[in-house]
């Protein structure tokens, strides 16, 4: 296993970058670009802008890498940079929205799975629309990115209990939507 290879821990890669191995940083970009691109789309609603945004986020993370002290995981630290960049960029683009059925790549899903996914996306979109807009991104960080309450709190600065109660309600709505869909089949 090479220290900058696909299996290396984030912390090892960061140590190498701080030792002057700039190329090692590309492993972190490869590892996290999917999340950052999805977040970028949520803020900017445009694939090309999401790519520019993601490039910006990674360059910011590189320049500020010495400021990463390991108090949270690297992914949480990076998500905080991305969140702040998103909040700044969004002023132009308006409301944060989750990925719609259009710009996600669902070709690999069976028709049945694609249907469940569409229902899930619809229920979560509704749940987000019912929230004050600033919390919508918390639901995506939880449901889409699989982050934990604490880490979402660290990335966005919102209180963990607030995030928890929004997720709670969204899950309840989601279960209801899925249950209703089942009944109609």
């Amino acid at each position: 296993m090479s220290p900058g290879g696909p299996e290396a821990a984030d912390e090892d890669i960061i140590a190498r970058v701080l030792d002057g191995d700039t190329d090692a940083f590309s492993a972190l970009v490869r590892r996290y670009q999917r999340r950052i691109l999805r977040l970028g789309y949520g803020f900017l609603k445009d694939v090309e802008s999401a790519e520019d945004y993601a490039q910006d986020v990674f360059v910011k993370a590189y320049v500020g890498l010495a400021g990463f002290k390991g108090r949270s995981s690297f992914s949480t630290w990076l998500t905080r940079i991305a969140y702040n960049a998103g909040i700044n960029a969004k002023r132009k683009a308006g409301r944060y929205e989750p990925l719609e059925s259009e710009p996600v790549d669902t070709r690999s899903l069976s028709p049945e799975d694609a249907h469940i996914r569409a229902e899930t996306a619809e229920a979560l979109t509704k749940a987000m629309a019912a929230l004050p807009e600033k919390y919508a991104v918390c639901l995506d960080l939880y449901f889409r990115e699989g982050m934990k309450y604490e880490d979402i709190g660290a990335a966005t600065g919102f209180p963990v209990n607030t995030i928890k109660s929004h997720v709670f309600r969204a899950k309840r709505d989601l279960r209801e939507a899925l249950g209703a869909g089942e009944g109609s089949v």
Partner: protein
Amino acid sequence: MTCDRFLAALDGIDNEPLPADLAIHARSCRACASESAALRAAIGLYRLPDLAGSSDITPRVTALLPFMPAPRRTVSMRDWIITGFVIVSSIVLVPLLAEFRALKAVYGSGFTLPVFLALGSLVTLYGGLFVMSHLDDFSRRLKAWQIHQHGRAA
């Protein structure tokens, strides 16, 4: 555990495997087990796809990095100040310790001299490290100050 409490707990748990008490209920209750499995599967599917039409941005990022200031390991100013504070307060506080006074009474300067020598070298070491690690910073500030003075004189 009742089914109602199971479902409320299910909505409340973090992104993590089912906690033991919920798992026990799910094992004996088919309705709750399938509810929990359906929720997990739906979230799993929601998580799957990538942003369509986007390309790998790694080459774009790596092409930019050589033009950016390279990050370097640093000790934050806060850590420097805390360390300095600890060293200075130990110099002040050590002579006040009852043990220090007791040993001083027995051994006199044969005890106090080495202790203060040790503390003194600690301060020297700290000061030396601080100056060495901030040389870049000092010279930048000095240059900025010189430019400022020059601007004023002109």
